[in-house]
């Protein structure tokens, strides 16, 4: 299994959801580090240098997740890892956005948008595709 030695950073301002997603990812064999809020998220990212990051979109501000993703993607280490934004905003605002085209990836600066609640098998699938791609490259 690819996941064994991979470390995932989870950032969410809802402590309950943070714990739940941590348990889910751990059950699939990932190591998980968590941060409550985007400020802490950045600190943990710099400290732990995770293999992937999953960020909640709406935290302190309505776009905290985007901003943190942007920051991570500019970082030397962050460039190499997949970053996912976790949100239910598309449903609530009716505003459809994704990160499937190059253009969208450019301005949203992440590797995918994950809808809440997390479907763990989908997420694991996405992560594994990314990790295996990376290895073959």
């Amino acid at each position, binding site marked *: 299994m690819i996941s064994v030695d991979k470390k995932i950073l989870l950032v969410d301002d*809802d402590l309950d*959801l943070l714990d739940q997603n941590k348990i889910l990812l751990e059950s699939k064999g990932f190591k998980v580090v968590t941060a409550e809020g985007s400020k802490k998220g950045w600190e943990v990212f710099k400290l732990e240098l995770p293999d992937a990051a999953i960020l909640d979109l709406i935290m302190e501000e309505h776009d905290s997740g985007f901003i943190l993703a942007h920051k991570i993607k500019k970082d030397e280490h962050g460039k190499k890892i997949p970053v996912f934004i976790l949100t239910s905003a598309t449903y*609530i605002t009716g505003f459809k956005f994704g990160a499937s085209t190059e253009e969208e990836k450019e301005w949203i600066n992440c590797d995918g948008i994950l809808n809440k*609640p997390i479907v763990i098998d989908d997420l694991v699938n996405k992560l594994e595709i990314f990790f295996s791609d990376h290895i073959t490259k």
Partner: protein
Amino acid sequence: MDLLKQKILIVDDEKGLRLGTKRLLEKEGFDVVTAENGTEGIALGTSTEFDAAIIDMKMPDFDGILVLKEIIKKYPNTVCFIATAYASYDTAIEATRVGAFSYIPKPFSPDELLLQISKGLEKRELNLQKERWQKEREERLLEVAFEKTRLNTIINSISDGVLVINKNGEAVLYNPSALKFLALKNIKIEEYIIDKLPEKLAEQVKQFLNSSEYLKRSLTVQLQMKADNELFVEATTSPVPAPDGSLAGVAIVIKNITELKKIEFLKSQFVSMVSHELKAPIAAVYGFLKLISDKSMNLSPDKQNEFINRSIVRLDSLLKMVNDLLDISRMEMKTTQREIKELNILDIIKNIMDLFQLEIKKRNLNVNIKSSEINPLFKGDQDEITRLFTNFVSNGIKYNKQNGSLVINIEKNDDYLVTEIKDSGIGMRPLEKDKLFHEFYRVKNEFTKDISGTGLGLSIVKRIIDSYAGKIEVESEFGTGTTFRVFLPVVDNALKENKVTLNNIQSV
């Protein structure tokens, strides 16, 4: 002088002719006045208006032409005849050139004279008629012009935009508001205007103008005229009928609906915020239940219990939030039943304190309640006012430090009953203070993460205070504490009482 008779002036120095003519004309029913020389002729002919004048060409003092000139200078409609024994082509021309109706060669036969006079009087009648009509027409025009000015003044002062377009698509009438709302620079009357209108409105107008039959209804369209919700207008186009029932054109009334749109936007923003806030606890509980039900997770009984308890906490806060939202909605719709009576604010606060005894002990807070009045009275609804102060007391305890203090001070000044709630809690940063009364806003920092709340308390408090025409002040220093000052108006209690009772009947 008979007023109904037509008056004729005879100016002649020859007595026989003068009297003979007078007799002849009087017999025919005319009122005749005679003058025996030019001087007298001018005097008579310019003092009253004669229907006709027969003037001798040659008189000892004045020339007949001169007399004629003087008379018609004063009364242009007096029909003048020049009578002359020296009839010549030149005389005739000269006489008519200066304004004579015609000339009568002397000697004249009675028939000839009467024929001439009747022709002359006919002409005079026509002239008078023409003059009357002209005068009438001028008066009409003046009246129309006045009406038009008045209408224009009214239309120009209407705050809604008005634009009238004829069936050829040309502007017929407009006011300054129409220019402003449709972002038109300047339009000329009778200029083809449809191309200059916003597309949606132009289409709407064309529907009327291009239709083969007369459309009786009005059409309305909303237009965003400026970006960022700065100018929204609603244009209503109605057909204008011509007298024969066909379409003469359309009248467009343009209303500024920017404020309405802003409210609409705030409302939908609120709905989306509410949905997000409601969804968060549901998602948390859903997640916990899924974990517990998933046997492959192998959760320990302790872990399962913890998740159940955390679910209960989230559901509890969800319930509170829904209740708060219902309260806000009731306040917004003004369906709250108020029972206004005299309340003792000191009693209310003391009662609230009793309910919080446990929390106060837990934090070991030093509570101090002071009042400048023995009975600080305020007329209001007991539930609302209790709710108001419960919120402040609860915040003052929740956000306080261990061993901190909570001081409540009630004072009355000329206008207000002022209640100050001062805590030694965690305080706020200026930016946080500004957002304090926004729905769902909660100060998020290392101190507040374990404090529960819906983020609606102060928003409700603000609504209650506003509804009593009161006000609120906040002073806060991060790390030191927060002071809220609630101002409830007491001045025209007598006046207000009536109003409140009235409002109460309408169940405000």
